[in-house]
């Protein structure tokens, strides 16, 4: 989607997170949801029928953006979770 503003912005350090095995560029201070959207990933989970679901409220209320932190197995809201360098995320399970 290429939605990042590129001119006249100051960002945190460049970092990388891994979503479903794919390395995504991000900047320190961004949320997991931001990094995923910036990389064109709109699918955050699947419903019981296997249909894709995506971020809806982006403020922690709807829980549509629940993803799994692979290391801990914890399910978290991508819109409230800060991206950390090397963090591994799964959109299934």
């Amino acid at each position, binding site marked *: 989607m290429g939605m990042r503003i590129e001119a006249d912005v100051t960002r945190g350090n460049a970092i990388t997170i891994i979503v479903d095995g794919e390395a995504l560029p991000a900047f320190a201070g961004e949320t997991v949801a931001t990094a995923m959207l910036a990389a064109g990933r709109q699918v955050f989970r699947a419903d*019981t029928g296997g249909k894709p679901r995506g971020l809806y409220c982006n403020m922690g209320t709807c*829980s549509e953006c*629940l993803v799994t932190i692979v290391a801990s197995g914890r*399910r*978290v809201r991508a819109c409230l979770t800060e991206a950390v360098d090397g963090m591994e995320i799964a959109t299934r399970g």
Partner: protein
Amino acid sequence: MDPGLRRGSDGEREPDGVTHKSDVLVIGGGLIGCATAWRLARAGAQVTLLEAGDINAGASGQNAGSLHFQIERRFIENGEALAEQAARIVALNRLAITDWRGLEAELGADLHVSMAGGLMVAETPEQVAMLEAKVRRESAEGLASRLIDGDQARAVAPCLAPQILAACHLPDEGHADPRAVTPAFAAAARAEGADIRTRTAVQAIRREAGAFHVGTADAAFRADRVLIACGAWTAHVAALANLHMPLYPVALLMNATERTAPVLPQLIQHVGRRLSMKQAYAGNILIGGGWPSRLAQKADGGFDLGAKASIIQASLAGNLRAAIDTVPMVERLNLIRSWTGVTAISADQLPIVGEVPRMPGLFVAGGGSAFTLGPTFARLLARAMGGERVAELDLLSPARFEHLNSFMG
């Protein structure tokens, strides 16, 4: 749609315009109203149903979907006399077990009915004694509940906490989907020819020459019999008929976790703490059990049933604590929703279902437990409204509050 084309509106003209005639008029598009409309329409009656809001918008759709057939905790916690009286409702619970087992086939709809059993657990010796007394009452009423120890309970439901000392197990309990049940009844009623109108609030109920005249903002209805099944609004609507109905609104709390793998096929309740837990078909664990929410109030006094009830933080914390203590694995799950719903309880805690003696032809149904017992109430009401004497409803008859209507009607 031209009102003149509707079934049941074939003609009687009155000075104020067309009067829609039917055999039965049901007020309230919740579980009981829609199910009774279906039963009566299927039996050949002309049925009109008027709903002030939308179908299934009240407690019928907001409850947590428990199918609980053991004697409820709320009946046990208020002393022996009430517990003894409440034990008599077990006869209706047994009918409800049969009704729920056949409902999906009868309606031809997937209601996510699961009857994999239920456990009411105890954590202390005092609570175990409560379960023992409860099982004695239930056995006397012919219910197949049995007391098992903690290890046996964990063999049935391995997710139960180690400190659970005992449980009362009833193989017939379970849960169903409140978002599916009432719409299925409404669709079935329509298919049988019932005229169901939403966004149609009743503003007047008058009994004249043996018939009921019911008015809305822009239409008039006439029916031989009327059923008021409006949940928390029942007392308000009964007042339109100049009757007192001792049903009081209560606001409750329900919660849902995120989906998880199948871990809990049973319904879990607690004899000493307010708790109900079940895993819905989609994998979410629903947590409720009668924790209070706060009803909205009107500026000039009284409760505002049109406004949402608000969540009480202490209820939320207490409910989730009881859930974690009973089924520890839920601590790892995200809570994704908490919501409030408003039901009604009666002056003596038993539901009120049946004909009002003061006003022959007027029937009322409400007062809690009406998800579990709703389909049974509806089946029995349809028979009673068809003119049959239905002894099963004697226990719940509005006749026990007739003194309140000595000067009314």
